[in-house]
């Protein structure tokens, strides 16, 4: 047997052994578990998947040291470029606008105002503090949609530079997602303003807010890299994604409570990663609850899956980009 087989066997054993361990955790640690068998299977699948990806990551880190070191060295070499690109994004975004950086705070506030006005007039959603509910969903989802949409066109848009100088291609989507992350920090100020204005009580769980933002960041990073890679070869994805993201937004329970969904879709929403990230964020801020281990595993699982897909697409395809730009 070759070394490869040992790796596969070890991976299989870890996955199998970890499932019962997690399934029998007390509910205080693990969080609410679905009662029906199909959903339980889904959760177990997620668990296996997350563990498997983590395992593969560790395996690659341990065995292909030179390869990993090479990538880290390039990333380190181009760190200044990354920093400057993020800074430049930020400067250009509000160049020649009177209110400048204030728009980062004002924009989510105003959109929230419009949505909550429309919805409280049209529908009667039984949600306490509806504005904050909308704003929390928007904060996470806009971060995702903005960063992935910008990342998608980033490689194509920087074609002129790619044709003239060697730059690792992932720098472009990464810089877009990082600058959206900076933007989300300003949106969070808007969130805090509404939080205080509506006399919501602070809970210590608020301190864990960076966690769902980090999960969303990793997910958006992977998804953005994947999209930017597809965009080079298949421009139609730009149009498809702009429709897709609208559908995605309406399926993420941003403006309505999840409970109003018909039962069939209600189960399907568990396949929507953004729903999990938004729920995580709301649990911490609005409900003052720390999501259990299951919620974390699902969030990490989706994020890692997207990251793997994005990194794989970038690393295997980046030498071909130049021929299609």
């Amino acid at each position: 047997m070759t070394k490869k087989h040992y790796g596969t066997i070890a991976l299989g054993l870890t996955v199998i052994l970890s499932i019962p361990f997690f399934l029998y955790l007390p509910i205080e640690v693990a969080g609410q578990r679905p009662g029906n068998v199909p959903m339980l299977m889904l959760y177990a699948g997620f668990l296996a998947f997350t563990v498997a990806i983590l395992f593969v990551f560790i395996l690659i880190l341990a065995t292909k040291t030179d390869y990993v070191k090479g990538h880290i060295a390039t990333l380190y070499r181009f760190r200044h470029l990354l920093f400057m690109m993020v800074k430049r994004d930020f400067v250009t975004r509000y160049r020649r606008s009177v209110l400048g950086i204030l728009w980062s705070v004002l924009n989510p506030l105003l959109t929230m105002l419009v949505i909550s006005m429309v919805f409280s007039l049209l529908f009667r959603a039984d949600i306490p503090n509806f504005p904050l509910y909308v704003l929390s969903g928007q904060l996470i989802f806009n971060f995702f949609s903005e960063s992935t949409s910008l990342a998608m066109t980033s490689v194509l848009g920087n074609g002129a530079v790619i044709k003239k100088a060697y730059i690792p291609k992932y720098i472009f989507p990464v810089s877009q997602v990082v600058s959206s992350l900076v933007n989300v920090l300003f949106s969070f100020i808007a969130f805090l303003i509404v939080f205080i204005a509506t006399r919501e009580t602070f809970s210590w769980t608020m301190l864990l807010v960076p966690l769902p933002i980090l999960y969303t960041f990793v997910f958006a990073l992977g998804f953005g890299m994947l999209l930017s890679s597809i965009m080079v070869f298949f421009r139609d994805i730009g149009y498809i994604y702009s429709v897709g993201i609208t559908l995605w937004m309406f399926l993420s329970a941003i403006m309505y409570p999840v409970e109003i969904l018909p039962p069939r879709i209600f189960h399907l929403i568990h396949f929507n990663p953004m729903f999990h990230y938004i729920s995580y964020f709301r649990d911490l801020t609005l409900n003052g609850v720390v999501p259990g281990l299951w919620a974390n595993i699902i969030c990490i699982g989706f994020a890692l899956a997207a990251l793997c897909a994005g990194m794989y697409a970038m690393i295997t395809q980046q030498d071909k980009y130049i021929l299609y730009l």
Partner: protein
Amino acid sequence: MNSPVISVNNVSMMFNLSRDKVLGIKDYVVKALQRKLFYDEFWALKNISFEVQKGEVLGILGLNGSGKSTLLKIIAGVFKPTQGSVYVQGEIAPLLELGAGFDPEFSAKENVYFNGAMFGRSPLHMKAIYDEIIDFAELWEFEDVPIKNFSSGMSARLGFAVATCINPEVLILDEVLGVGDFLFKEKCEKRIAEMLSCGATVLLVSHAVDTIKSMCSRAILLKKGEMVHSGDVDEVCQVYEEGANI
């Protein structure tokens, strides 16, 4: 002891000309049915091999379309060769085109820092050599002007100044010296000589045989993607001029 700074081994580069033509589903299906999809091959470079030693200036001669720029782009890492490999020891500063990597919307100052970052230089380092760059490019009056308002000579000067002031180990120049006036050209040549004395290596592409003769010790001649001659600069230039006259 004397390991080459650049070694190019059996490099071939193939472009698929039909790739650009396939734009829509209809075209794609029609072409696929005609089995024409992947057969429009064009070999821009065929089996190129050479080595460049440290401190050398290698001239690359050839008519338009002979594959000079493709070769430089492969060495700079922009293209990945279809076959063969390229090994470069040390840091390359490619000047493949005038003002490559400059963002036209930004000022000269911002672009200097940005260009430096593309070469892996920190803003702190760029600040230290900033005066030298602007001095060399003679652009003190225009440091806050967006590059889009620059003349081609101005952005060429700035590009050259940044690429040489960061002291790269390998400098690639593609038809860059032809742009400035003769004063600037002299200045550039002096600068290159300085860099060479510090142990830099230079690859130079030019149609001006005089420039190649005055600066290079060795040259290679490309013709339709093949290396037809390599060796002493005078000899190669002679072959090039004879070939061009026919």
